Structure formats: C-alpha cells, structure tokens
C-alpha cells in the first residue's frame, strides 16, 4: 500500500513531476553523452598515438632522451630488431634514425625532426604510407628522397620533386648537410607531426649521421595493448643496455589523461547529480509542505515514522527510477548512433583539435560498466535527495499539521 500511495502521489501534480523527471532524464543524457564524447576523444587519441606515432613501446639508448644527441644510438640494433620482431606478441617493429636539424627550401627554412626509416617496416608500425596524399611513399631503394608533411610543404613552399637541404650535427658533432627531393607529402590529424616530421630512407640518414647503420629508436607495436607493461619489464631485463619505455612513459600527458579520466568523470557526474539533487529536494519539499495537513492526519491515524519516511522516500525513488533509465536509454541510442557515424566537428574545431593531436570527427564511446556506475550514482543521489524532505515530514507535529489550512 505504501508503494501504491507513493506511486499515486507522484501523479498528483503531473506537470511538476514531469518537469523533475525530464530534468533528470536530460541531465543524465547530457552527462552520459559528455562522458562518451570525452572517452571517445581520448581513446581515439590513444589509438592514433599508438597506431601512428609512438607505438606501444620504444627502446632507446639510456642517454638519448636527455638531449637527443645522435651519438647515443642503440648498439647492435639490427639483432635487437630481429629478436623483438620474432616475438609472437609483436605485430610490427621499426628501427628509426633520428636527428633534429634545419630544413631549407629555395624560399624558406625551418627546424624539423628528421627520421630515417625502413619504409616497409615503418609503414607496418605507423601506416605512414597510407597518409601520403601527394606523390608517393618511400621505397627501400630510393636514394635521397624525402616525405614531408602538408603543413611543412606549405610553409616551405614545397612541391613534389622540390629540393630541400637538411643540415644537422653528426655523431661527432660536425655539421653535415644533405640534399633531398620531395617524393611524397603526407597529412596527419596531428599538426605537430605534419609540420615537424620528415621521413627519409634509413640508409641515407645513417650515412650522413655516421651511425654505422645503427638506429636511435626501435618502435614496437603489439597485438595486445594489455601486455605492454609485462613486455616492457621483460625487455628491460633482457636488454639492460637499452631504455625500454611504454607509451605511458613516452607520452606522459596521454598516460595521465587516461589514468585520471575515470576520476574526472566521477567528479563531473557528481556535480551533475548534485545539481539534479537540489531540483529533486526542492520538488519533494514542495510536495511535503503542500501535504502538511494530510501528513498530520496520517500520523494521527497511526502511520508511524518509518512508514512516513518510506512513503516520501519511495516517491523520490519512483520519480528518479522512471527518469533515469529513460535518460540513459536516450544517451545509449545517441552514443550508439554517433559511434557509427561520428560527430563531425571539422567545420568549427579542426585546427584547434589538430593542434592537440585530436581528430575532428569524434566517435563517442561508453562502456556498459559506466551505465551501471551512473545508475548507481543516480540511486544514491535519489536516496540522499529523499532524506531531507522525509525528515521535514517526520518533524511535523500532527496537531499543528492537521490544523494547517
């Protein structure tokens, strides 16, 4: 009977109850959507960073990271690449010769990161070839050919077959220079890469740098991202002369983003629910204060405090329990649809997102566990929100309440 009365009570003032329910619905829909949007964006950034930039893990000379001095290359790097590539957990592996230097065209010059790669292996790790939008990707047999980003090409007014001169220090600290011809121009969602990275054949750069064919960096892509930590520790033991770092260590800002996302999202949701709870408390308080006389009568004829509390409690819970699943269902449908078709923000945010390495089309994503977590938080909110109005009802003096007009 208590549940029946509570259920009927919420429909006494349909408009008011519906306003509360719609606000809960919209709050949850918006909250879940923002959650999915941020998760989608971060996951996409992570996948892109791993799939086309840093890979799952990298090996360097322990001193290379200090100031990227080219003399700190990995000894016997070919054997290392072969051994790592033979591991069944490894999907692809690429050795890179790296140096920072000046890039000069006929019209301008700028700084850049010169990367000497094995074109086939690099393509397996970063899909660089598929990003070439003008000209062609490198072949292992190419001599003094270079791939540049579209932004850099625009900056230096480069076209296919344009000539550029790269100047940098070799392993001995001597200034060396090499002339290269642009073979391809690539695009990247990450403007830092598109403006700063230049790819040449490993042999060309290694010769200029005098690294004896050795590489500065080995990038490893694994089949299962969950195994990274374990494999990093195994490689560290296996190759004590190399610094082995996971993507989290290589890109700490990304690691921090992923690690702290859950906490941020909980805080974000608690804020939304806190705002909603004030609305619920306000409405329930109104319903209690409107029914002072009736509540006084109920206490007079023998409704005890537990039942009275229960009645107000269930009224609150019912309202939230109707609204919350509908709000989450609406969120699920929206997120599902957008996870397929994407939310295209290229018209307004393309440049801004690219500057931070994000793609302008976001595919929102929210795992089932988050729907459960949200529902749990909502139920806790409803319980909390019911307490004050219920206590207000319990504090009523039946004699005074009955006399209330």
């Amino acid at each position: 009977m208590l549940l029946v009365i509570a259920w009927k009570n919420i429909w006494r003032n349909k408009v008011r109850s519906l306003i509360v329910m719609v606000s809960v619905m919209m709050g949850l829909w918006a909250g879940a959507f923002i959650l999915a949007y941020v998760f989608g964006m971060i996951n996409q950034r992570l996948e892109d960073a791993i799939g086309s930039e840093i890979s799952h893990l990298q090996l360097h000379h322990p001193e290379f990271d200090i100031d990227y001095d080219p003399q700190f290359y990995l000894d016997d790097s070919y054997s290392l690449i072969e051994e790592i590539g033979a591991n069944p957990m490894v999907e692809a592996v690429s050795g890179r010769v790296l140096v920072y230097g000046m890039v000069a065209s006929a019209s301008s010059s700028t700084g850049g990161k010169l990367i000497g790669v094995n074109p086939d292996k690099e393509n397996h790790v970063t899909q660089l070839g598929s990003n070439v939008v003008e000209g062609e990707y490198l072949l292992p047999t190419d001599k003094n050919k270079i791939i540049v980003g579209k932004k850099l090409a625009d900056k230096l007014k480069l076209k296919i077959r344009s000539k550029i001169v790269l100047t940098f220090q070799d392993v001995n600290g001597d200034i060396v220079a090499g002339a290269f011809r642009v073979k391809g121009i690539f695009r990247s969602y990450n403007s830092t890469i598109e403006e700063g990275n230049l790819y040449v054949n490993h042999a060309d750069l290694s010769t200029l740098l005098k690294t004896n064919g050795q590489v500065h960096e080995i990038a490893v892509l694994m089949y299962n991202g969950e195994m990274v930590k374990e494999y990093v520790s195994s490689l560290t033991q296996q190759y004590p002369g190399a610094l082995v770092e996971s993507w989290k260590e290589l890109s700490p800002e990304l690691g921090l983003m992923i690690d702290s996302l859950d906490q941020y999202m909980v805080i974000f949701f608690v804020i939304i629910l806190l705002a909603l709870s004030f609305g619920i408390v306000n409405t329930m308080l109104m319903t209690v204060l409107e029914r002072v006389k009736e509540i006084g009568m109920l206490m007079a004829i023998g409704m005890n405090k537990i039942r009275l509390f229960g009645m107000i409690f269930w009224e609150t819970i019912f309202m939230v329990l109707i609204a919350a699943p509908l709000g989450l269902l609406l969120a699920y449908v929206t997120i599902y649809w957008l996870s397929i078709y994407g939310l295209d923000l290229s018209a307004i945010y393309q440049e801004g997102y690219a500057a931070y390495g994000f793609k302008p089309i976001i595919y929102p994503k929210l795992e089932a566990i988050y729907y459960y977590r949200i529902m749990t938080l909502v139920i806790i909110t409803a319980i909390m929100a019911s307490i004050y109005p219920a206590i207000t009802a319990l504090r009523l003096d039946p004699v005074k309440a009955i006399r209330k007009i």
Partner: protein
Amino acid sequence: METSSHENCVIHTEDLTKIYDEGAVPVKAVDNVHLHIERGEFTALVGPSGSGKTTLLNLIGGLDKPTSGKVWVHQVDMSTLSKNELIDFRLNNIGFVFQAYNLIPVLTTTENVEFVMLLQKKDKEERKSRVNQLLKETGLEDKADKRPSELSGGQQQRVAVARALASKPQFVLADEPTANLDSKTAENLLDMMARLNQEEGMTFIFSTHDQRVIDRARRVITLVDGAIASDEVREEVAMAT
C-alpha cells in the same frame, strides 16, 4: 505500562491540564479536567470557541502531551508511551474523524477505509470483509471506487467515519464532524453514528457547536475556559430521523 483498574472505563483523566506557553501570555487551554468515559457512551463536548474542546480531544487521542495530569485510555497511561508507541496505540485503539474529512485524495473509498487495516497488517480476507461491512453500514457501497474529489462532503465524512471504525478502535474521537455539512447530510451522518453506537456499542466523543449533535448526545460535557462547567447525562435523547 501503568493501568487503571476500572474494567468498563474507556477514557479516564486526572488533573488534566494543558498550558500553551508559546505566546507572550501562557494560555490554559485545559484546566484540571477529571473525566471518566465508559464503553458505549455517546458524548458531546460543548462550549464556546476557545473553551478547550479540541485540545481535550487531542490530549485524549494522544496527539498532544498534557502539561500536567494523566490520561488513561483503556487502562493504559498515555504518558508512559513513547512517540512511536503512541502512534501504534492510536492505530489500534482510537478512531479519528476530522472536521475537514482529511481523506487521502489519491485513494478510492475502499482504499481509504482499508488503509488503517493495512497499517495494522491485517490479512487480505479480513480487510475485504471489514471494508464491505463498513461500506454497507455507511451506505457507501456504490461509491467504493470513487476518489474523495468525486464524493460530496457528506459522503466524504461517511468515508472518514468508516475509516475511523475500520481498525475496530476502543472509541472514536470526532472533532466538529458536522461543521462542514448541510442539515440533511449532518442528520444522516448522525443517524449512522447513533446506529453504530447502539448496534455495535461503539463509544463516540464529539467536540461540537452543532445543536443537532448535542440533541443526540446522551452525555453533554460543557467546557468553559478549559474547565468542565457541567456534565449532564440525559435519559431522553432526540430520535433518529
């Protein structure tokens, strides 16, 4: 629990006093009332406005605490009961009828009458049979599925009486039950309560200004300034219409 000794005694008060001390000047609403009401009485508490009728009913009903003195209901000293015990005690021993009916607006006639029995955790069969009996006695059988908003004032007050009787209380306290009713409806309601009093031996105590109620009462207690000014037991009362 302390108990009084008289077997037939339904209500007994001793030196009952209630002083409201909320304003600038304390007001003595009930002044040293000694009262003894036995099973089956049909009693009217009368007196001018502010004479303490409703306060006395509230004290007898355990809705309010006396400043001093004691109330025994069915041999139980009400002052020894905690708030929760008082609520349960009211549920099982006292029926209330209010001036403004005070039905639960979202429930039907049947559900309103059944409500107190649900609070008493009576089983479904017992509830059903008692509701049917009470609706029959109060002439509300054809209004069983109506909500209070669909009933007239007289019909709502009948539902309130049926609800008050549903828990099989020791007595019914009715505060100005006919105040909002027209003459004919008030007469019908009084007829019904008089019949329940005579046939079932139900004890009724009214606070009232209504001469029609006073005419029907077999005992009339007049309060003046919170004290009993007269207590008249009558042999002859007005007959049912």
